[in-house]
């Protein structure tokens, strides 16, 4: 098994700042983050100065930067969507993004889990979307392909995206968390697996890594709920963009992995309050699923950009009539691709 060695300067860590004081967050992550370049994007709605401790190699983007680069555009980078501006500005191959209310988790021996290293491992080892391996990731130490796994499928394909998990506050929706307010995730599942081709999944944006060269444009900040808020319970922007990434990866024969690494997600907000405010996202998912499950790209769609352009027109045509939010998402997607191309050309 080859040793993965990528240079630290191939990685950007993009953090969306939804709270102004990042001291605790960055100090907790310092042992893991300090080697890398960070891009911190301040939520344009956030008032007050960001507080950031010394000793990090970073770029900070605020509302004025966003306005300068993006100009007038239907794309909103408010709230959790601010991180997409960071993806846009990054020139690195691998991007890791973690919510600012998460700190490193600890393994069963109390050691700090290096989430960045695990995402990098996931992204730089092959994925196996065409046949399920019952021992999960066959490329990790101590595991392999099981009997019955066809040999021609053992070289795998490139991994486009790595989706991590969360201990303590799991990424449940508001109704679920409100029903079980004491429920905390304490189960550490020691596995990474490839989500099979053709299978849909809800991609949480809380703890992800991706290969920007392969799938960058497919993480689209297109879908905003009318009353989207500053808690994950009040958003589905990542779920939408995750669907886009998955169908794009399936078409381009890239893999999406799920499982480790875990992060520790701190208590924040109230599920019941969020539920009272916004649960439209939950209803809208019902319309969105059959659409994504039946997407077929044309043969000409050879890159993530091509695919995303096709998604935009399919959304406009098929979902637009159902709800103006979808029509807006389609338009925003078209703008996003233009913006992505423009910024990359500079």
């Amino acid at each position, binding site marked *: 098994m080859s040793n993965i060695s990528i240079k630290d300067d191939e990685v950007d860590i993009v953090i969306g700042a939804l709270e102004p004081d990042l001291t605790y967050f960055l100090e907790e992550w310092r042992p893991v983050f300090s080697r890398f370049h960070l891009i911190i994007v301040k939520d344009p709605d956030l008032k007050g100065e960001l507080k950031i401790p010394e000793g990090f190699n970073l770029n900070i983007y605020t509302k004025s930067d966003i306005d300068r680069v993006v100009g007038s555009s239907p794309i909103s980078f408010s709230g959790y969507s601010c991180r997409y501006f960071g993806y846009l500005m990054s020139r690195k191959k691998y991007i890791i993004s973690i919510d600012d209310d998460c700190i490193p988790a600890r393994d069963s021996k109390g050691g700090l889990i290096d989430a960045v290293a695990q995402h990098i491992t996931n992204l730089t080892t092959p994925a196996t979307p065409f046949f*399920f391996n019952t021992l999960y990731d066959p490329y990790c130490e101590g595991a*392999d392909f099981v009997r019955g796994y066809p040999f021609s499928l053992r070289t795998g394909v490139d991994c486009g995206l790595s989706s991590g998990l969360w201990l303590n506050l799991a990424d449940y*929706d508001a109704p679920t968390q409100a029903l079980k307010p004491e429920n905390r995730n304490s189960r550490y599942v*020691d596995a990474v697996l490839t989500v099979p081709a053709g*299978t849909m*999944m*809800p991609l949480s944006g809380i703890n992800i890594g991706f290969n920007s060269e392969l799938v960058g444009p497919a993480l689209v900040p297109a879908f905003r709920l009318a009353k989207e808020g500053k808690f994950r319970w009040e958003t589905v922007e990542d779920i939408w963009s995750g669907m886009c990434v998955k169908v794009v990866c399936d078409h381009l024969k890239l893999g999406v992995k799920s499982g480790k690494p875990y992060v520790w997600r701190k208590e924040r907000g109230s599920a019941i309050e969020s539920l009272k405010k916004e649960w439209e996202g939950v209803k809208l998912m019902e319309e969105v699923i059959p659409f994504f499950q039946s997407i077929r790209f044309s043969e000409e769609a050879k890159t993530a950009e091509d695919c995303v352009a096709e998604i935009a027109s399919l959304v406009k045509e098929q979902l637009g009539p159902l709800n103006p939010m979808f029509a807006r998402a389609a338009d925003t997607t078209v703008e996003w691709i233009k913006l992505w191309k423009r910024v990359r050309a500079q």
Partner: protein
Amino acid sequence: MAAPSTPLLKDELDIVIPTIRNLDFLEMWRPFFEQYHLIIVQDGDPSKVIKVPEGFDYELYNRNDINRILGPKASCISFKDSACRCFGYMVSKKKYIYTIDDDCFVAKDPSGKDINALQQHIENLLSPSTPLFFNTLYDPYREGADFVRGYPFSLREGVPTAVSHGLWLNIPDYDAPTQLVKPRERNTRYVDAVMTIPKGTIFPMCGMNLGFNRDLIGPAMYFGLMGDGQPIGRYDDMWAGWCTKVICDHLNLGVKTGLPYIWHSKASNPFVNLKKEYKGIYWQEEIIPFFQAVTLPKECTTVQQCYLELAKQVKAKLSATDPYFTKLADAMVTWIEAWDELNPTGDVAAKLPNGAAK
């Protein structure tokens, strides 16, 4: 909140064990298995006496019994291969089957506690599966887990679970080439998860530690023609798994994999394995695309109908790979005929008693 206790299902579940050696391993399983009825399928020389440890309630079938009961249809049951175990599925009268190999022992979880594999299989089989959408926190019905944000509510009821596929600590289920290259590798990783294998995805099903709902999927669990007189071995459970998965996908049933673990103690000889698997390694390159492309007509609404349709397609599309597949397709039909004969539907089928021990 106290966890609800798992029903024992002791009158609804049979444990099917193929053996050619002995059943000493049952001593270790006694606390977990003693309350259940066992169906022992004795492979190899029928004149050998297999001793069953005291206190177990069982029925035992050797080759003479299989020939007597099935007559000419006995040709579909393999000889000199653990594939013969599927005879046990056929003669069982229970709703659930658990099958385990005689070199599999009780494993320990990371806290050092003995794992009651049977109880976990029962939990897996009694809770729904979620093949239509992947849940990133794995089985949402397990204690301490749930559906994640973004999981559509309309899919949260799940579908009935037909198969529970368990895993193995210590000797992993590798093929011969992998065994030869990594003779010392042991599976020491305890992955605390059960998950549904998504619809449209096939997988390599291992028969070492397997539970299933016989009422829902039984007739699809034919372990093929292997062993004596056959050009291939160690693909029995694989074949059953591929057939079972496409039928489950068609009938909207679920297949789970993951917990429970058992401790697999014996590594079989990799050179012997290589000879058995050799043809399979080439054939599976054709077999897999075949199963990935299979579609079953809407009119197939029972497992038997699906299976017979599959047999037709195997004969039509895989015979070009090797004449073995013509024989296999015929055996698949014979299997269904034998199954229906031994398991007639209607009043006659109601609650027949267990077979008697020898």
